[in-house]
């Protein structure tokens, strides 16, 4: 009995197919060992109560997930990451785009600027955190502020603005977000600059011939052509900013109450602070899920934007 629609493969074709599978086998093996297995193992751990050392794990079903739903600190940390992301999406990317536009033009020393703008991203986050901690230091010595920012504010007779930047709940998270944006704008700058350089120069010339001014060219030529690049930059910004934590640790240590907690610092706290590996894995799964959904949503949105 033959199955309708199924073509019988010749020995030659089977050999060809087996050969192809053989070639992708190493990649599949590596992917399975380092991505698929850890994912299932993390999911498995998230269903257990385990301290990370003990030989026994207690199965607790979805209790960890239920607890996360009521964990106010966890959701607060999620909001903090969203706040940092929002500042990165606006301030950081606007800065990156403005600088990319400037460097796309025939300005003097543009190569030098490219190097300078790309410096912050290549610096270690720990080093950046420590430098900014010094800049934002609120200490005093012999009546003079120790931190650079407070020092300049004092010298500029703006004493009312002098404050305890990293120990004030109203400014600590914003300081972290600004430093994160300062450190991260170089990535966006490079990608956006590369995108700008792919735009056909004839489009600009045609627009100019039609009498379009600089703003009109930007609005009607540059921005529409850059939408796919914007989406890439936005997705990378969201993924990078939501997962920020090294900067947080190096700037405020274990945090100012819960005001500077972000999801990754909470996951670390669950693992090494309170030794709840199962709970940390459940947090990781929920966090990964949220990032995945937001990336898909952004992708869908960009497709709609392109169609519009």
């Amino acid at each position, binding site marked *: 009995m033959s199955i309708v629609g199924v073509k019988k493969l010749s020995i030659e074709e089977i050999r060809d197919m087996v050969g192809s599978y053989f070639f992708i086998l190493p990649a599949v093996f590596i992917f399975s060992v380092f991505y698929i297995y850890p994912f299932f193992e993390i999911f498995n751990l998230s269903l257990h109560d385990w*301290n*990370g050392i003990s*030989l026994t794990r207690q199965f607790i079903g979805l209790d960890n997930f239920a607890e996360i739903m009521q964990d106010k600190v966890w959701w607060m940390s999620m909001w903090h990451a969203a706040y940092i992301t929002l500042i990165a999406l606006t301030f950081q990317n606007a800065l990156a785009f403005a600088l990319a536009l400037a460097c796309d033009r025939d300005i003097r020393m543009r190569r030098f600027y490219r190097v300078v703008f790309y410096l912050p991203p290549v610096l270690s986050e720990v080093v950046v955190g420590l430098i900014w901690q010094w800049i934002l230091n609120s200490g005093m010595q012999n009546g003079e502020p120790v931190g650079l920012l407070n020092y300049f504010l004092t010298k500029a007779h703006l004493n009312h603005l002098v404050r305890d930047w990293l*120990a004030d709940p109203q400014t600590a998270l914003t300081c972290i977000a600004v430093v994160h944006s300062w450190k991260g704008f170089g990535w966006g700058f490079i990608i956006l600059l590369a995108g700008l350089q792919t735009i056909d120069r004839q489009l600009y010339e045609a627009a100019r011939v039609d009498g379009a001014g600089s703003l009109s060219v930007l609005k009607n030529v540059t921005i529409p052509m850059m939408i796919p690049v914007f989406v890439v930059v936005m997705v990378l910004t969201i993924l990078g900013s939501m997962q920020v934590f090294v900067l947080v640790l190096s700037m405020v*240590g274990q945090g100012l109450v819960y005001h500077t907690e972000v999801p990754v610092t909470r996951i670390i706290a669950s693992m090494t602070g309170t030794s709840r590996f199962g709970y940390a894995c459940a947090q990781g799964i929920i966090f990964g899920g949220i990032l995945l959904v937001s990336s898909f949503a952004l992708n869908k949105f960009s497709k709609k934007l392109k169609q519009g």
Partner: protein
Amino acid sequence: MKKTFLFAALLFCLTGCFSSAKQSNTITIWHWITDRQDAFVRLAEQYEQQTGVKVKFELYAPSDIYSRKIMAAVQSSVLPDIFGVLGEKKKFASFIEGGFVADLTEEFRQNDAAWEKSLFEKALNVNRFEEGNIYQVKPGIYGVPIDVTNIQMLYNQDLLVKAGIKTPPTNFDEFLSAIAALNRIGVDGLVSGWGEIWMIECFASNYAFNIMGEEKVMATYRGEVPYTDEDWIKVFTLFKTLRDKKTLALGIVAKGNKYAEQDFALERAAFAFNGSWCVNVYDKMNPGLKYGAMLPPRVNLERPMQVWGGAGTSFVVNGMSENKTMAIDFLKWLTAKEQQVFLARETKNLPSNREALADIPTVLSQFASAMDLTTHPSIWKYNESPLVIEAFCKGIQAIVIGEAMPERVAADVQRIKERELQREQR
């Protein structure tokens, strides 16, 4: 040729994956103590010359990174021959339960317990599990203290004189008055690394012991006394007083201890709350600093002030190591008088060997004199749940920045305590 090379590379990688704890003439030690690395390396060279056994000290700092490395090594069974377990005793017990830590009791008992007797009892107790311990660990000694430490208050002698203070304060009221005098000459009062929550826990626990005594603190941990009890409110209120009287250095709740040490060493604050390891740190930052150590000023004058202390650094031997005997021999050598004198001299830390105490700096001897008043969570019969500790310390941070009142923090901590008690019952 290419195939042979590839095969050799693969073999190298695979053996690398499973290379820990195998038998060789090399002992590998993982530690986190940056300021002792040079001295350790020099001792290792000396040991190799004497015995032919190579000792590799591998430094992974700071301590939280080290802890994560140890946890990862446990999962993948690549622990070194000797390492340290940082954190609460429950975690230490889990390492023992998993077979990752060797029982050293018999080694300590040999030769009429000569090794045991040579070391400070308080330091050994941190590594000891008593009969009937709540973790159900077989009674015995599971670690070797390399040095001893305790955490006290430091005062800057010059700044105190400048503010007209003749002697360091002995009680809390005197302490507040001293800081008011210091503030008048533009000097900050107390600095400490309260961005690291364990330091807040340590400071608060000293005062909890002083205000209500050890038994009541333990009863709270057992769930028999609520955190809303008036004595606990007194503990929380202490932090409000410190804030209201402008006693604390600016930004104290976001400061890592390294920065707090810098502030004290550079004379930005007159008092510091820090451990005996600071002697080495301050010496490197400002060799001319004139300071002394004192117990935190008491609130309740009828009870002594107990401070955290005992073993500073303890090493354990990997229970699965093939080099167990060699590792134990090395630790015996490392804690012998000559090596301890060398370590105390080079690193300005208190030695764990009693006989090595002579010839230490004055400040260190002030620390040493308080060893009888030390206590530590590792030797308590009960330990508080880490989640409660986190809420407790974060609550204190909230009081210090003026965001919460003591009563509210007490209620919040109690709510988490009750949730943890329910979880334990389940």
